[in-house]
């Protein structure tokens, strides 16, 4: 087979003279021009001569035994090249998974959730593949479903997974519990006796979807060497690779992965979707195979945010000091483990929020059920807890007759505070200051729907264009919330990134080339890498190579970690490259000027300069006939696992804090909500790219708004089937639902982190939701222990 390159193959993105800035400047995205001209190649844009289209047949029921699968008629359909089921898998490895391998590549003997892949088809046109899939006859015998804690742990409950052999199986109280993490510190029962007031509540957090706009998709091209080239949108190439290669029976170096354009991720691309399926079909047919999910399938193609039930009890003294916390958090992990164990770790260790509470009794667990699998989504376990503890803070403040912000500030953690895990917070924790800032901001004007002499502008009212109110029933409310999110992978995970940096002269100019496997999913990591290279190497021109598996792992684009860890890796490699460049310079020119030997040397604006500003040489001259090329790993400080009984351990490396003030207007008769303003204050340590920082904060805030008032995957409790897998019934905020989002950025350096930066992507998603809920409570006087809030909850219907 002749070597053919698919259309849409990512190529280097070079950023030239248009943006010259280093860190701290709002330089523009290197991929910006491609993205506004429509030329940027997303994974669904890939095209290859002779390519086939893959299609997935998914289960129509949630829990059933598969008695038989008959593919004969489907296979006879003209244009169909292959149909694969479990029996066709090429090796003994037939399952995969992020933390443990419990997910079948194709269903074997039974299906455990609605929409589980059962068979895959390759055909010459997507419609041919769909029609063929419709002809596959699967004989299901229904099994009873478990859908919540009661049904999952009832006596005689069906086991979602029999014969578990994963590393949590030994310590969980029931096989339908994936992982359980208690945290016990001090004596909560004893401390409760000191409390003047005690408040408790049961909170419910609905199932949120990442709803990234670019559906799961990719192209697998069989190679001449029996391997496969896979172009795909993912969050972590090397994690995919580790899961894909064994199923294909190929060594990892024969599965060559390249990151295609990624249309958003938010956690939803941390697990595999179509990767293995496309490779299997490509290897079977010998032809390139493209798979593109549509929106309906996308709702089944990735994990969701864990829905949760949370029981909380807090006490406080009458002067407003928290005495204790007892809480129990039950997360629904659905049919497969995905990232559930790590989500449990976060939910438990961050369940107390950014507050000082010395006596705690905490338990968090994730269930196996027949509901859709849940895993990573922006905020990762900390989101659900924040919704509950912030509701508790408002209840306590009300009971004590204290202002809710004042009460929070009285209990706010700061640098040096001991977490319930026994870990000391060793970098700035400006919780009280963030709250002070959002509160100090002037409130937006009232009744903005009033126009000069004319009818009400319904666009500024609850209900919007639907014309439901001209001001009738509308009440304003204001609410506050603050949250804490860990940054990076915790609990002893070896969290590292790799960066390769080359420096050379091209056309008389010094150029740096940065190569990492970091998944650019929109966050702007590529922008920051170029800024770091400019800062460290003093070059104007930086080329960012496409992310692929020819370079070492960059970890996942998740956990707010990429700027910290892969950014840190780029910085580290650049520093080593700089040393090499200086060595070359010393060898070439050292004899001409004593400063080469004695001064601190920097690379700035294409020159080698002393720290006093004296120019020693042009980089172009130093690098003439030379190049420096290094690939190095870099890791943040190690963390520890939490003790399985007490939850003690230095589990986290860094924290991120944001506070919100929400101003809402509620049509109290119809139960419709308009969010008027969502003000944010966040500590970012150091804003490497201020414009991108704002984008992350505003985007995260809006996802929090979505799950406050509209976003929820609705699963039928009787059948465990998804009822709204479409953008018609799973609603995300439009521009008319999204308020102005003023942002106040603090930069208090974390001395342990590169440039003092703090991971920022997730924190704004935490406190946004409870702030909106608090504002709605303020407007309506209702208790509202569930999110998202539906009109029914606000109208008692």
């Amino acid at each position: 087979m002749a070597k053919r390159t698919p259309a849409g193959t990512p190529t280097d993105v070079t950023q030239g003279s248009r943006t010259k800035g280093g860190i701290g400047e709002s330089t523009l995205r290197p991929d910006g021009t491609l993205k506004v001209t429509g030329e940027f190649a997303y994974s669904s844009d890939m095209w290859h001569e002779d390519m086939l289209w893959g299609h997935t047949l998914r289960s129509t029921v949630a829990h059933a035994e598969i008695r038989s699968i008959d593919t004969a008629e489907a296979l006879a359909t003209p244009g169909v090249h292959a149909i694969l089921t479990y029996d066709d898998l090429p090796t003994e490895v037939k399952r995969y998974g992020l933390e443990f391998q419990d997910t079948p590549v194709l269903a074997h003997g039974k299906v455990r959730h609605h929409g589980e892949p059962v068979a895959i088809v390759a055909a010459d046109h997507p419609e041919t593949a769909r029609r063929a899939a419709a002809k596959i006859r699967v004989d299901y015998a229904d099994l009873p479903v478990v859908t919540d804690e009661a049904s999952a742990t009832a006596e005689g409950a069906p086991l979602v997974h029999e014969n578990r052999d994963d590393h949590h199986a030994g310590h969980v109280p029931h096989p339908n519990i994936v992982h359980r993490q208690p945290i016990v510190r001090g004596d909560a029962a004893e401390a409760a006796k000191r409390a003047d007031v005690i408040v408790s509540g049961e909170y419910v957090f609905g199932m949120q979807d990442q709803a990234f706009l670019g559906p799961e998709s990719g192209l697998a091209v069989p190679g001449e060497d029996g391997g496969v080239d896979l172009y795909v949108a993912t969050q972590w190439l090397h994690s995919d690779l580790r899961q894909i290669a064994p199923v294909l029976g190929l060594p990892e170096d024969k599965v060559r992965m390249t990151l295609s354009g990624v249309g958003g991720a938010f956690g939803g691309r941390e697990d595999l979707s179509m990767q293995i399926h496309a490779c299997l079909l490509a290897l079977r047919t010998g032809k390139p195979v493209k798979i593109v999910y549509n929106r309906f399938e996308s709702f089944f193609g990735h994990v969701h945010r864990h829905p949760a039930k949370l029981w909380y009890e807090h006490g406080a003294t009458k002067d407003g000091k928290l005495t204790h916390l007892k809480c129990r958090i039950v997360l629904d992990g659905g049919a497969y483990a995905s990232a559930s164990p790590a989500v449990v770790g976060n939910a438990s260790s961050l369940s107390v929020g950014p507050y000082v509470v010395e006596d705690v009794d905490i338990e968090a667990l994730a269930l196996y059920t027949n509901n859709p699998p849940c895993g990573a989504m922006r905020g990762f376990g900390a989101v659900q807890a924040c919704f509950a503890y912030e509701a508790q803070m408002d209840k306590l403040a009300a009971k004590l007759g204290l202002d809710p912000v004042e009460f929070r500030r009285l209990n706010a953690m700061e640098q040096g505070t001991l977490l319930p895990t026994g870990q000391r917070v060793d970098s700035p924790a400006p919780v009280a200051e963030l709250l002070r800032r959002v509160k100090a901001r002037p409130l937006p004007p009232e009744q903005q729907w009033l126009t000069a002499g004319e009818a009400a502008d319904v666009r500024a009212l609850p209900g919007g264009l639907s014309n439901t109110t001209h001001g009738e029933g509308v009440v304003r409310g204001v609410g506050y919330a603050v949250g804490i999110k860990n940054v990076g992978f915790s609990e002893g995970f070896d969290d590292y990134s790799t960066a390769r940096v080359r420096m050379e002269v091209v056309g008389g100019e010094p150029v740096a080339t940065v190569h990492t496997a970091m998944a650019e999913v929109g966050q702007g990591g590529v922008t920051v890498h170029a800024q770091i290279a400019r800062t460290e190497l003093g070059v104007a021109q930086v080329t960012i190579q496409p992310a692929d598996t020819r370079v070492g792992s960059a970890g996942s684009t998740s956990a707010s970690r990429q700027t910290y860890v892969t950014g840190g890796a780029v910085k580290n490699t650049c520093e080593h490259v700089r040393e090499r460049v200086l060595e070359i310079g010393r060898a070439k020119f050292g004899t001409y000027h004593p400063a080469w030997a004695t001064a601190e040397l920097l690379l700035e604006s294409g020159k080698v300069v002393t720290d006093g500003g004296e120019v020693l040489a042009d980089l172009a001259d130093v690098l003439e006939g030379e190049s420096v090329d290094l690939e190095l790993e870099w890791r943040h400080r190690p963390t520890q696992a939490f003790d399985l009984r007490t939850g003690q351990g230095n589990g986290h490396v860094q924290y991120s804090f944001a506070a919100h003030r929400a101003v809402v207007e509620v049509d109290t008769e119809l139960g419709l909500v308009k969010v008027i303003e969502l003000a944010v204050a966040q500590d970012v340590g150091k804003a490497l790219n201020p414009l991108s920082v704002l984008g992350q904060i505003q985007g995260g805030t809006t996802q929090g708004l979505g799950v406050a008032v509209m976003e929820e995957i609705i699963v039928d409790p009787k059948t465990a089937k998804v009822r709204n897998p479409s953008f018609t019934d799973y609603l995300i905020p439009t521009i008319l639902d999204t308020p102005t989002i003023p942002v106040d950025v603090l930069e208090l350096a974390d001395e342990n982190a590169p440039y003092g930066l703090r991971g920022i992507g997730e924190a704004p998603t935490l406190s946004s939701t409870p702030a909106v809920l608090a504002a709605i409570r303020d407007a309506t006087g209702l208790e509202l222990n569930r999110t998202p809030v539906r009109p029914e909850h606000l109208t008692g219907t």
Partner: protein
Amino acid sequence: MDFLRPAGWEEALAAKAEHPTAVPIAGGTDVMVEINFDHRRPEYLMDLNRIGELREWAVGDEHVRLGASVPYTQIMEHLRTELPGLALASHTVGSPQIRNRGSVGGNLGAASPAGDAHPALLSAGAEVEVESVRGVRRIPVEEFYTGVKRNALAPDELIKAVHIKKASGPQQFSKVGTRNAMVIAVCAFGIALHPDSRTVKTGIGSAAPTPLRARVAEDFLNAALEEGGFWDNGKVITPSIAKQFADLVSGACNPIDDVRGTAKYRRHAVGIMARRTLGWTWEQYRSAGTTLEGAA
């Protein structure tokens, strides 16, 4: 699947007679969703975009004759005075892109109880002009909806136009959705005052198997307005009349629980919308000289 492209109306009627299973497609905002999501594989698709007369409208003395494919955007821009209720309803349809393609003919063809045009048509008063090779007939819109996503069209018939009574008084339209734009109705309500006949007509959307008028509520209100001399004295409608009207509108609903809302909420919300829109239209009627335009 075959794609039929009739160049004119007669050709379309002939094609529909020959292929009664042919699915007409104009804006595509319903049909293409069903095809893209593999919910429907018609034997024939029949494109109506090439038939120019379907995109035309004519304003007569009593009625507006609205071609079946006139996009909602055109109704919002050009027919606010004559059809204020429908213009308001048009403004709540989908997104600007959808309003550029979607049409009242499509809403009627799909006959979804959630179609936004229905309450406005019911309250204004309208007849659907349908035609086949056998001839033309005009169906009062109340009789057009025969069940969930079912209508009175015979297999060989196509919708040609809708004859909608021109507004003689204020009209309003409200719709509840859980998003401030681009949302399918949880429930909707339309109201039209007809000072020429001293009647009020209503339309309820998405709160029963079909769109429907709240006739008992209309009868009550018409009697109460007549009895109190409200049409002449222009007094404020008493809260008790408004409340009873709203309660009767709620009572006319026969909703279901689904992912978009509960039956109980729908009944409640339709009542609130009935009370509010009655208030808005009546205020507009009382203040002489105000324009009858909707705020579309």
